[in-house]
């Protein structure tokens, strides 16, 4: 099986602490992977380091190449609080940004780009909102617009930073179904996620981290009380046995 991501002893240092400690793993194509861990575990930092957006030590190969050579194949959805929602762009303008990697600098966006934008908005159920300013939407709708932008990019690798934070149930369902669809097309999806509920239903694999890698593998193999409590170090309480885990977080 072809490896889409190869990470070897990746570390990120901040002034006087280490946000990511010596993480190594290899991920395969066509998987939906949750990056899970408590607050401050370095989940966002890890994906930024993989994408070369954060000064890091260690080796990273993306799609078998250096990340700088495959950037057009990478789609990234930021945390919602990173965005200025008063920015003067409409829903369709945001989704069109996903097409920018495909349009040469001397050309305007074409008919095909517009078709892809509309198709992507349809997929997330936001077509009727295309002329709205992005600040006028609910949190879940905003997140769906950003998913549509990622879809419009026609990338091979998707990185989503906490896409399920503060959104409604309908949006969450639409998004997770789309991510599964993307995965079934043979693409790879990484999702930073801090909430343990539903982790079992959502992901194929889990990358459990708390600054260092605790465990990486199939959900059914790593979603175990001992591994979870090692990851969360006492910030959660676990009930039940291996087959049936109930998590109470603080």
């Amino acid at each position, binding site marked *: 099986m072809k490896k889409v991501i190869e990470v070897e002893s990746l570390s990120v240092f901040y002034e006087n602490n280490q946000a990511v400690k010596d993480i190594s793993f290899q991920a395969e194509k066509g998987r939906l992977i949750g990056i899970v861990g408590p607050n401050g575990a370095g989940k966002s930092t890890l994906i930024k380091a993989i994408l070369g*957006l954060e000064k890091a030590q260690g080796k990273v190969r993306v799609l078998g190449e250096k990340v700088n050579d495959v950037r057009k194949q990478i789609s990234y959805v*930021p945390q919602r609080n*990173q965005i200025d929602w008063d920015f003067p762009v*409409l829903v369709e303008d945001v989704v069109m940004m996903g097409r920018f990697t495909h349009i040469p600098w001397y050309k305007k966006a074409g008919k095909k780009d517009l078709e892809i934008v509309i198709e992507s908005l349809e997929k997330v159920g936001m077509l009727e909102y295309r002329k709205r300013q992005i600040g006028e939407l609910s949190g879940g709708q905003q997140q769906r617009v950003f998913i549509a932008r990622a879809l419009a990019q026609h990338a091979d690798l998707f990185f989503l930073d906490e896409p399920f934070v503060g959104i409604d149930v309908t949006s969450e369902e639409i998004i997770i179904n789309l991510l599964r669809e993307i995965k079934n097309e043979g693409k790879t999806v990484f999702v930073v996620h801090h909430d343990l509920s539903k982790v079992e239903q959502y992901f194929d694999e889990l990358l459990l981290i708390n600054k260092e890698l605790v465990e990486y593998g199939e959900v059914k193999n790593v979603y175990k009380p001992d591994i979870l409590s090692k990851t969360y170090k006492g910030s959660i309480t676990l009930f039940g046995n291996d087959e049936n885990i109930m998590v109470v977080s603080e």
Partner: protein
Amino acid sequence: MSNITMFIDQVMRYSYLQQALIAAILVGIICGVIGCFIILRGMALMGDAISHAVLPGVVIAYMIGVSFFIGATITGVLTALAIGYVSQNSRIKDDSAIGIMFTAAFALGIVLITGLRGTGVDLWHILFGNVLAVSRSDLMVTVGIGAFVLLMIIIFYRPLLLSTFDPVMAKATGVPVQLVHYLLMLLLSLVTVASLKTVGIVLVVAMLITPGATAYLLTDRLPVMLGLSALFGVIAAIGGMYYSVIYDVASGASIVLVASVLFGLAFFFSPKQGVITRKWRAKKVQRA
């Protein structure tokens, strides 16, 4: 009404007034366009900084006898680089780095200028503009800069938009965000140079921020905001020149005041964002 005909009459009659008016209109357009990006990036202070930082460049260029526009561009960009260097290589935050570097550059310019006493560089004119002294060659420089700036904005519109709206996504998909930042700083320095005679170093920040902010209150689309901002810049230029000619007051400051009045109108009465319009709408909803 007779004032307006008098103004038109004077403009028709005196070529220096025509040049002044054309220069002011061009400055209104390019400041308005660049200003939109400055506002959306939360860089108003940076705009102020770069505009002040061109002062030593202007003076040094005068001393060694090269075009002041080269000197100004160099010190403007150098200051932008220095600000980035200080904030990235120490615990000093961006706004403090800006405060330190631009005042240093500005002070250097003032020291140089006072050392050059009697040489014809007029500090007052550089600081506050003297639009009536716009020469033909000044106008040519302004036209050249204006064309270059607008061309760069058109070519780099998408990278500028993306790196302003979502810098992390921009970087992740391969937009050279840092380079875009310095390109914007270069354009900012050029715009300041172009505005030197019209509004001067101290007031150029108003032409960068105020028309853009006015437009920001009136639209939800960036292309429209850019157009409106340029339009308000032009209205301010013409209105300011009018008051300056008719009432014989400082032109740069008049231009800025007209821009400020436009902002005030939008702030209170913008259909969607206006303070008074919103209150009025809320009342209507309550009654219904």
